[in-house]
């Protein structure tokens, strides 16, 4: 399993993603520079969190036009796994790989806290090692994490079961109080129709060791690793 982590100007979680994959999950990881073309064989490309291009104009609006993104779009269209965390999620929405958009938190404040997430679907490479309805604890840290989609798009998300994570309280209830940013229907993470592109606002990379207060983030990464290993086996 080979992972690539893209560094955009203003990425700040790239090293955390790299370290959690390398140290906590013992995976093969390489950094990828935004100005390069996407070359080499990768199983999963990660777009990390941060403030690419200073969040100017809109979060993720300019990173979408980085040279490497053309390769990422092609990679995704050919079935490669793409994971966008926080700013990476925003970039995936801006680039049209995921539906909808992320806008200013309804409370207008930057939120930085631990949240509980309920896993809604498990038939994806990103959540395959988790049980449906299982709760995961990891942090959020963002100012523009309010998920929005128009009613038709939301309907499609439901029909195709693309909503993978919801913000919930410690008992697993998707209440307004448990929603840190005002996201529609408490949506914290979703995938595309083909189920090979996943974006989420919470940060699994800083929840991969007991030292950091949670190891639940590792379940996302190990789901991906397990999915790729299974595929390699079935393809002989």
């Amino acid at each position, binding site marked *: 399993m080979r992972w690539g982590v893209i560094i955009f100007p203003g990425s700040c979680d790239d090293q955390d993603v790299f370290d959690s994959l390398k140290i906590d999950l013992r995976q093969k990881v390489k950094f990828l520079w935004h100005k390069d073309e996407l070359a080499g064989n990768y199983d999963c490309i990660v777009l990390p969190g941060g403030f690419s291009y200073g969040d100017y104009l*809109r979060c993720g609006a300019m990173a979408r036009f980085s040279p490497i993104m053309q390769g990422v779009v092609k990679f995704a269209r050919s079935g490669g796994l793409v994971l966008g965390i926080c700013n990476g999620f925003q970039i995936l929405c801006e680039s049209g790989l995921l539906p*909808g958009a992320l806008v200013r*938190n309804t409370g207008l404040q930057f939120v930085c806290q631990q949240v509980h997430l309920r896993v809604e679907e498990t038939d994806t490479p990103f959540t395959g090692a988790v049980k449906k309805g299982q709760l995961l604890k990891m942090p959020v840290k963002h100012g523009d994490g309010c998920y929005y989609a128009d009613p038709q798009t939301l309907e499609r998300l439901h029909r195709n079961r693309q909503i993978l994570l919801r913000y919930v309280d410690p008992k697993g209830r998707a209440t307004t109080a448990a929603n840190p940013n005002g996201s529609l229907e408490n949506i914290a993470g979703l995938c595309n129709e083909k189920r090979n592109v996943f974006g989420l606002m919470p940060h699994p990379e800083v929840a991969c060791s007991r030292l950091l207060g949670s190891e639940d983030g590792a379940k996302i990464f190990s789901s991906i690793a397990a999915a790729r290993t299974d595929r390699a086996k079935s393809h002989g």
Partner: protein
Amino acid sequence: MRVKIFVLLKNGVLDPQGNAIERSLHSIGYEEVHDVRVGKYLELDVDAPSRAAAELRVREMCDKLLANTVIEDYRFEISPES
């Protein structure tokens, strides 16, 4: 040609900044204010052989980068003088 571009959140997309400003205006005595929306205003010079050509290019820029049409509407004005 000088182009003035206005970008505003679509109706139906929650505008928390607009709401906060509206409450603030109410609190200082402007109770007659409703429906405050906060957007972006951009100005730029563009080289183009004609107004129609400029319009075509600016529309493209807005659709590709300057606005996110999932959440925002835009309009623009073009004037000949720079």
